[in-house]
């Protein structure tokens, strides 16, 4: 794998659904691009916008936030806040000139190993087309 050309994706995955989903993808031996660096968080609503900005600042080409499907949150209503928070962030990033495809919010449940693979694959391919992320 050519390190220079491969996009780096920081994935914030919620402990209860998306992390388990990613785990399932692994234990089921589903082939997927190795571009996501996973950070496990207890809930997708734990992620503040600063964390996403910091990922970009420190050289991530894309950021993925994944949590339980709305209605399935382990903490009842955490991801309803996530949904509101990140729709604002996404529109705002677009406003300051960052391609919206570089930031994704996805709902992946613990049984959706296949969906996780599709998300990662889709995002990696998109980022390959977009090229390296440069702030300036």
């Amino acid at each position, binding site marked *: 794998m050519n390190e220079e050309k491969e996009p780096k994706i920081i994935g914030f995955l919620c402990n209860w659904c998306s992390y388990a989903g990613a785990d399932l993808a692994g234990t089921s031996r589903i082939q997927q691009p190795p571009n996501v660096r996973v950070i496990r968080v207890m809930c997708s609503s734990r992620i503040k*916008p*600063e964390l996403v*900005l*910091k990922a970009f*600042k420190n050289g991530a080409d894309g950021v993925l936030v994944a949590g339980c499907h*709305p209605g399935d949150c382990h903490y009842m*209503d955490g991801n*309803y*806040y996530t*949904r*509101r*928070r*990140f*729709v*604002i*962030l*996404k*529109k*705002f990033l*677009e*406003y*300051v*000139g*960052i*391609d919206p495809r570089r930031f*994704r*919010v*996805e709902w992946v449940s613990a049984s959706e190993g296949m969906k996780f693979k599709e998300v990662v694959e889709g995002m990696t391919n998109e980022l390959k087309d977009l090229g390296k992320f440069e*702030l*300036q």
Partner: protein
Amino acid sequence: MSDIEKNLRAEAKKLLEEKKVDYVIGYEESNGKVSPCFIDNAKDVEKLVFNPGCVHNLSVYLLEADAENKVGIVAKGCDSRAIIELIKQNQVIRDNVFILGISCDGVKDLLGKDYDKCKNCKYPVPLIYDVLLGEKKEGKEEDYSDVEEIESMSLEERKKFWNKQFEKCIKCHACRNICPLCYCEECALDDKNWVSKSHKFPEIWMSHLIRALHTAGRCVSCGECERACPVNIPLRKLYRKIGKDVKELFDYEAGVNAEDVPPLVAFDLDKDKEKIKQN
């Protein structure tokens, strides 16, 4: 002397004499320049003025009042929205402030030009007040053309535009310090885990974006940040984008109704499902 000014002095005098408030925050004029002033003696009320130079949003000084202080404050329409927001966020106790609301005709800078915020002012009459001075009047239509102008640029152009603006920043933090809604005792901008003290890229990009996102659903577009900025970064255009999105998506406007729940700590199951398409 205008009627408003005369009534303002009379009201302030009454408040101080009856000891309803400990002090009144208002405007004074010296050497042709208007500045905020604090009056705690009924004899000094003659200092109070109100004219088109009174641009300052005085609500920021409410944050410095002690919990037991009762404060009288002069507020224009835009300032009153900040006060509502402060009450909503439990920073100010409603019973501790006496609001001298002023129906405003717009304020002007030192060259006599209208401020941007006055060109499309939706609420010239304060939305919350104990006494209203001046006539009630209609506000103008909401106008987001400044934001739309930037939205119509291409991604590359927008990036260039904002980076050029951010590059000017000397990180004096005036925008934060003058903002009435920036009341956090520990600010993320002082935390070196988020941003270092450098005023170069990418730190400067980071600090502006953090501040913008922290004002989401709170910013009342009073324009004080833009006025205080020594290098003229169009901050209001930056923050108003979020205001616009919040209005469109959650049907919420900051500082209009003290009963509303702030949009990012609330959710509406049916509407959110319909309106928010993530990708």
